């Protein structure tokens, strides 16, 4: 059976890189005793597939991996057995059974399904030293909401991107689907819009912003990039270590499903992306 596992990564585990998280899950699955499928060959490895990697220092309530098991289990049993072996800072949120992978056909990879993610970006209660003056980073952001709104409402948001052929300017505006200052702003129809932030860190200064952004291998925008552009525009200091990014959920855009990378790129360029976002755990 093939399942999609949704998990949270929070607290001190934000200091573990993506490769370490993969190794962690391999070991956790062994400890759980679940009969996971291995690849063939002299160095067999577990058939685990992770969605978009999370940056070092970031927390999440919306991480995903797909796993294949040789035996039949109920979704509830897998959830329970995994959570029984999770250590501090990891929690499995849900387990969803997917339709079986057909032998000898190309699997629908979780990475290719990923096209959007929700983020909460917060300003940490942390002092920074700028021009010899030490003060809370939050102190630089008077009129936080007003200025950010003004910035995000611009027609175009150009950022410099370093590529192989030198620096180019790209417009990130089309990759920002929604933003707002309460969770409901980006998920107005959700029954529990706060669902993705149960393990997010909270700061006294209260400065935070929610984003729904393009994510995945076709088109990807990191929330820090938007914030850096904002700081640049307003002449404010930018300190990435003073920002806390929390991923809330990861989505598939049904209008791009079944397209390969090239086709998806073309579809986006031609404006055929319909933003039919469905959380990955609901995509079977």
């Amino acid at each position, binding site marked *: 059976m093939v399942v999609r596992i949704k998990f949270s990564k929070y*607290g001190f585990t934000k200091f*573990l890189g993506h490769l*370490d998280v993969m*190794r962690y899950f391999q070991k*956790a699955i062994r400890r759980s005793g679940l009969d996971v499928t291995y690849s063939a060959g002299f160095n*067999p490895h577990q058939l685990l597939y992770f969605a978009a990697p999370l940056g070092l*220092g970031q927390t999440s309530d919306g991480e995903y991996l797909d796993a294949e098991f040789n035996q039949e289990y109920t979704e509830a049993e897998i959830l329970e057995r995994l959570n029984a072996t999770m*250590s*501090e800072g990891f929690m499995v949120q849900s387990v969803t059974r997917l339709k079986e992978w057909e032998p000898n056909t190309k699997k629908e990879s979780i990475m290719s399904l990923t096209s959007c993610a929700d983020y909460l970006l917060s300003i940490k209660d942390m002092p920074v030293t700028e021009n010899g003056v030490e003060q809370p980073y939050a102190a630089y952001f008077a009129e936080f909401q007003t200025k950010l709104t003004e910035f995000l409402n611009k027609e175009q948001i150009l950022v410099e991107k370093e590529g192989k052929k030198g620096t180019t300017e790209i417009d990130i505006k089309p990759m920002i689907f929604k933003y707002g200052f309460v969770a409901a702003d980006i998920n107005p129809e959700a029954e529990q819009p706060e669902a993705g932030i149960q393990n997010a860190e909270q700061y006294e200064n209260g400065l935070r912003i929610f984003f729904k952004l393009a994510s995945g291998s076709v088109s990807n925008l990191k929330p820090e990039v938007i914030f850096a552009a904002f700081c640049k525009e307003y002449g404010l200091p930018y300190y990435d270590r003073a920002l806390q990014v929390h991923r809330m959920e990861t989505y598939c855009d049904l209008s791009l499903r079944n397209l390969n990378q090239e086709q998806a790129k073309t579809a986006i360029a031609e404006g055929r992306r319909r933003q039919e976002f469905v959380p990955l755990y609901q995509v079977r």
Partner: protein
Amino acid sequence: MRKLALSDDILLQVEKPARYVGGEVNMVVKDPRAVDIRFCMCFPDVYEVGMSHLGIQILYDMFNRREDTYCERVYSPWMDLDPILRERNIPLFALESQEPVKNFDFLGITLQYEMCYTNILQILDLSQIPIFAKDRGEDDPIVIGGGPCAYNPEPIADFFDFFYIGEGETVYDQVLDLYKENKKNGGTRQDYLAMVATIEGMYVPSLYDVAYHEDGTIASFTPNHPNARPTIRKQVEMQLSDTFYPEKPLVPFIKTVQDRVVLEIQRGCIRGCRFCQAGMLYRPIRERDVEFLKERAKLMISNTGQEEITLSSLSSSDYKALPELVYYLIDEFGKQKVNISLPSLRIDAFALDVMSKVQDVKKSSLTFAPEAGSQRMRNVINKGLTEENILKGSMDAFRSGWNKVKLYFMLGLPSETQEDIEAIAVLSDRIAQEYYTIPKSERNGKVQIITSTSFFVPKPFTPFQWVSMNTQEQFLTKQKMVSNKLKELINNRSIRYNWHDADVTIMEGIFARGDRRLAKSIYDAYKAGCIYDAWSEYFRFDLWAKTFEENGVDISFYTSRERAKDEIFPWDFIDAGVTKEFLWREYQKGLEETVTPNCRKKCAGCGARSFNGGVCYETPEEV
């Protein structure tokens, strides 16, 4: 949720923040306020090295079984964090509670190699604990040393309150109980140290005085306190199948050097190689029961989820139930896709069968450690591996599909001649020649031979503790002899030659047989910037050499000086089981090129029989 000692800001500046956050699977969590004793266990090297050490895992488990004790861990901060801690005056902290080490009752430091000595000073310094034991007050932790380098603790004696000589399983309970008792009675630090000195195996350096002859050798080594024992007898756990062994080893998040479950199958060695300190120190050989090992292996794999298990011992082939154990592991873990790694195996039919089952023949290599190139030299060092063994083992392996061979040798052994040195090259070539006797159609491509040489360091408690160690110049000349000889030989293109650094070897030589007078130099070298000496990118021989010169230390006194038979060595006060008479006898036999049979063939009367167990009391093998 545990609060971390370091801010996000700092953790995101360093290369691998996971080194400092703890929280690993199977980490022990206790309320520090609810225990009587807080013990911080330290491996003075970077996390990935320290976490790979079995000894700490055993002691961590053992201490934490006590309800009144919380044992935590600390490792050396890497060079990216070190300056930050100093600049911001952040005291070094333990991984579990993230609380400063200076608030603990004990700091136990394992001494696995000489080149970690400056890292010990870094740990103390960053913990804000006075570096010299004499400067510590009632509120500072008691600093304990243990592990192999504690068998000559003298160069670092000034930095430690006491040393635990031998295996940790035996008397640590007494050490901790006495501490509690002393605290309850309102006793001082000095009271406690005087009490500890009464426990067998505990060495409190401040309770001894050393006097020197004019030539620099030791005139006397005498207790200055009624409690101090004139000789310190090493501690040995004789019941290895009924003692502490972790069922739930810690599982690091980041990749460590030894990223696998370690199953220690036995302690000690029957072989009696004359250069080998471990082979002498850990006598007598004691095996763990095979059923005990099977059970622990299963528990550890299911509690850690590790994908590899390795057997640990000095010479696995001498473990009597090895085939039973190995075939069990293959059978039990094969279906769980757990890899089995088998270091220190003698290459024979059994080894080849097992290796072909557990590894990819095409990718793996065979390893031989002849240690010396000529049979004469191997007789001197009592390495019972013959050229015939090596050639036959290689041929059997070549016929089974292997084509990579690793060979380990030492340069600078006692009585070594140019012929012995060149024999290293000749033997490497002979193995390659053997390979090419196989018809081309049956060969698996080209043969690859990797020949490595290290430089010999005479160690305490070995038959060679009296000998002169080579100088850098001699080492380099000898290394060139091997290179030059290799170039003359037919198969030189199939042989890759690696060698060790001579400067580090000299340092090891100084500390291995050093005395108390070196402490000042270690301190000065640390202050001058020496740290992570075991890491070639940080090792600064120039700084060390300068420091020794400034302190009037003559390097050759410790390294290349041939010792007299009756010289008092800095480590003579330790009774490691093997007697000085035995070691001298073995030294003389070595010079006569006479081989001593292994412990199972014939007792050599080394003295370890006094521990009342192990191989000394096995029924002798029929010869």
